[in-house]
């Protein structure tokens, strides 16, 4: 008797509560199950090495296995006093500055021209973007050959127009610029595509209105196209700076960091400290100094974007 009464009284409230609880529980199980595979890899190959790297940076761990004693901050102290570390960091920043400017401006120029409604669009897109599909090693092979002092095509052309040959990869003053040329050829097509996509999304009505007001091509470009591309430009610059700071492949392959360390970048220094010098602990410490730099740059850029868009 009593049980039936209980049931009847509880009936309106409890099932709703239960259903809600059950749904919440089911969602929790579903949510974590869907996340589980990603989280497993994420934990194992990103979070764990990230933490373990910090641990390594406090030790004298070496590739030969010997001496993994705890050193405290000694590796960091050594790195901050290491002239070679500062030199590679300086080279990296130098490359970042001198590569970002052409990689953004040339991409903008290419996109602006192609967006004028030229015939054979696919052909221009193909030629500007195709190099992006190549592995860094292929690009390096191409350009080491183009830059060859005696047999290279570039010096041959310079000779034909009466200019002196340049020792592209062996002159410390020129080598980094040669890397910039190869990098520009390789990756500008990516920024070009992003700009082109953004330009094609600007409503044509803007241009039609401007045309009615008598604005010419230049005027339209500077007062409609560029302002409309503001967000895109900011994004491209941010991505480019972060990508340039991580440069390693083409330098390592084309100059090996030479001549005399003139093109050695920070990632190469990390690699060499660990794998040529066998000092994993020291190399990990430099990695985190580099990481610190990336964090500072990202925060600075974030602050700038926020101010801009506010």
């Amino acid at each position, binding site marked *: 008797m009593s049980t039936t009464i209980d049931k009847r009284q509880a009936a309106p409230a409890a099932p709703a509560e239960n259903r809600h609880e059950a749904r919440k529980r089911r*969602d929790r199980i579903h*949510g*974590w199950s*869907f996340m589980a*595979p*990603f989280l497993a*890899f*994420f934990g*194992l*190959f*990103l979070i764990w090495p*990230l933490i*373990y*790297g910090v641990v*390594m940076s406090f030790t004298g761990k070496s590739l030969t296995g010997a001496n993994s004693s705890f050193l405290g901050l000694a590796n960091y102290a050594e790195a901050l006093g290491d002239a070679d570390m500062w030199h590679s960091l300086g080279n990296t920043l130098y490359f970042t500055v001198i590569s970002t400017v052409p990689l953004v401006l040339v991409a903008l120029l*290419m996109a602006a*021209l192609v967006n*004028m*409604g*030229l*015939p054979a669009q696919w052909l*221009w897109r*193909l*030629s*500007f*973007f*195709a*190099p992006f599909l190549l*592995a*860094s*090693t*292929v690009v390096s*092979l*191409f350009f080491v*050959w*183009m830059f060859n002092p*005696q*047999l290279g*095509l570039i010096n041959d052309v310079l000779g034909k127009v009466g200019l002196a040959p340049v020792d592209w990869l062996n002159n410390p003053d020129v080598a980094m610029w040669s890397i910039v040329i190869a990098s520009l*050829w390789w990756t500008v097509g990516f920024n070009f*595509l*992003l700009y*082109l*996509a953004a330009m*094609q*999304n600007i409503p044509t009505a803007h241009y039609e209105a401007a045309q009615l007001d008598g604005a010419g091509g230049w005027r339209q470009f500077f007062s409609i196209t560029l302002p409309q591309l503001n967000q895109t430009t900011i*994004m491209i610059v*941010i991505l480019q700076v*972060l990508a340039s700071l*991580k440069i390693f*492949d083409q330098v390592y*392959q084309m100059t090996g960091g030479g001549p005399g360390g003139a093109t050695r970048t920070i990632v190469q220094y*990390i690699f060499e400290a*660990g*794998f040529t010098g066998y000092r994993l602990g020291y*190399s990990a410490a430099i990695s985190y100094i*580099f*990481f610190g730099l990336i964090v500072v740059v990202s925060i600075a850029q*974030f602050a700038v974007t*926020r101010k801009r868009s506010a």
Partner: protein
Amino acid sequence: MATTLTAPARTSRRTAVEPSRKRRKPLSPARIIATVIVAVLAVTWLVPFAWATVTAFKSETEAAAAPITLVPKSGFTFDAFAKVLQQGNIPQWTWNSLFTSAAVTAVTLVISALAAYALSRIDFKGRKVLMTVIVASLIVPPPVLIIPLFYQMVSFHMIDTYWGIILPQVIAPAMVFVLKKFFDQIPRELEDAALVDGAGRIRIFLQVVLPLSRPILAAVAIFVFIGAWNNFLWPFIVTNDSAMLTLPVGLQTIKSAYGIQYAQNMASALLAALPLILVFLFFQRQIIKGISTTGLAGT
């Protein structure tokens, strides 16, 4: 960082570069000048390819002779290609690259899509924290991880294995967000209808959400595949055995092995470039669209 994440949504909602879109306008002087400038730029951009091709078809003696010739004097020869294919490991490396890149793409796609669906649709405790952690992880530059990851791979006995090449490459937080943004735009009503019918989450995910997401899945797959195919630093670190190298890493060893064989160097470079260039010629439209939609969130 938050701004990085708003970009893909904006671009994916719009129609990206439409190769077929033609705006026929009369040929004004400005457009003639623009065409000339673009043509000059495009030719300049093709020069390294052309020069490599010419060199690869020369005999080794002619390739190394000054003054240089723009057309092989002694005729075109396949010697360099034949030598490279006989001596080197290029077919093996191509297979390694193909297999590992395909595996990276498949795993990345599956785990990222599942995670993105949970983040977009399922209301569970801990979701916000996970979002924050994954956003924060975008800032970690891969080179920072190479030293601890290498050490980890040694203890997992994964040096010189496909596992070692593949596994650390499958985490792509940026792609998770690209997919999440896309899933966010799929009308919930479609799923609610299925839910009422008693369909489970997995079935909704497989039969409702994924079929609607084909374009973005293709875009992400293309982006991830190109990245994995061309990745140099990680395979370079985790492989040693010549039979395990990927194409980009293998080429680097060729370069140091026969440094002055110019024709053979160029022949190997062209053979390595060929697969992706062919893929691009066939899927130009999808690739360009893929890059434009995922590009801003990538790298």
